[in-house]
């Protein structure tokens, strides 16, 4: 007898929705990601339980664990720091300079940097982490 063959059932998992969710998540991560600037500068920030959340400033000065000064991620000497900051801050109303200093440095190393920032009329924003610090 010639029976009519039943068509084989076709199984498939609908993945269109998964793709939608994945793309939504990608868009979220693209928009929220801030790729760490100046990650090549080797410095360990200090910590204090008294820190507060602050907004990032477009002008940054870093002093790494060897006492090397970095202005906007570029190596810089103390003598040229003031002129460099002057050029960056001259057209800004909010003259805030984000200052990142390695926790191991001593006052004689970071003090002149603060003085240089003050000489150009900038406000210093000291950056550190949350925690007891010890």
């Amino acid at each position, binding site marked *: 007898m010639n029976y009519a063959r039943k*068509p084989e059932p076709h199984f498939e998992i609908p*993945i*269109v929705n*998964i*793709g939608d969710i*994945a*793309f939504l*998540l*990608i868009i979220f*991560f*693209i928009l*929220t*990601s*801030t*790729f*760490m600037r100046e990650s090549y500068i080797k410095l360990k920030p*200090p*910590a*204090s339980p*008294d*820190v*507060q*959340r*602050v*907004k*990032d400033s477009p002008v940054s000065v870093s002093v790494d664990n060897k006492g090397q000064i970095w202005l906007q991620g570029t190596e810089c000497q103390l003598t040229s720091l003031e002129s460099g900051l002057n050029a960056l801050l001259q057209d800004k109303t909010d003259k*805030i300079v*984000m200052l990142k*200093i*390695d*926790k*191991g*440095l*001593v*006052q*004689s190393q*970071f*003090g*002149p940097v*603060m*003085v240089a*920032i*003050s*000489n*150009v*009329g*900038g*406000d*210093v*924003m*000291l*950056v*550190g*982490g*949350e925690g007891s*610090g010890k």
Partner: protein
Amino acid sequence: MKFKKKPFKEPEINLASLVDIAFLLLVFFILTTTFTKTSGNKLKIPSGSTDASKKQEKQLTVSVKPGEIRFGEKSEVVSMEVLREMLSKENFLAKDSSQRIVILDAGKDVPYEEYFQVVMAIAKANGVVALVDQQEIEGGGSSGGGEGGGAQK
């Protein structure tokens, strides 16, 4: 003639590879994203040396040396916790701006971590930090040298 009718197949775009790429990108972003939050505090450090005649009658001073913090009228050695308590008792918010000033006298060899913690403690207590410029003092400059400063929220 009887032709065999081909079963109708709905046209579709194969999205499997697209989803693979999407998930690869997703994994990349999840692994590389660090939600950084900047913490710290702002300090106003106006330039110019301090006039000795403008000295306050009762000026609070925090002296920092490596592993040693001194505060108060008698310049007692205090711990960070005690310093925080003493600063909060000063109730700077109720005082006018000139009375909020806390002079920070840090020695040349003070590590930045200690310095940072003291500055943050003063700032949290709503005190105004006045930095003493060690170089200016050593150079025979004005007494107290330094740069006026202010911590702001």
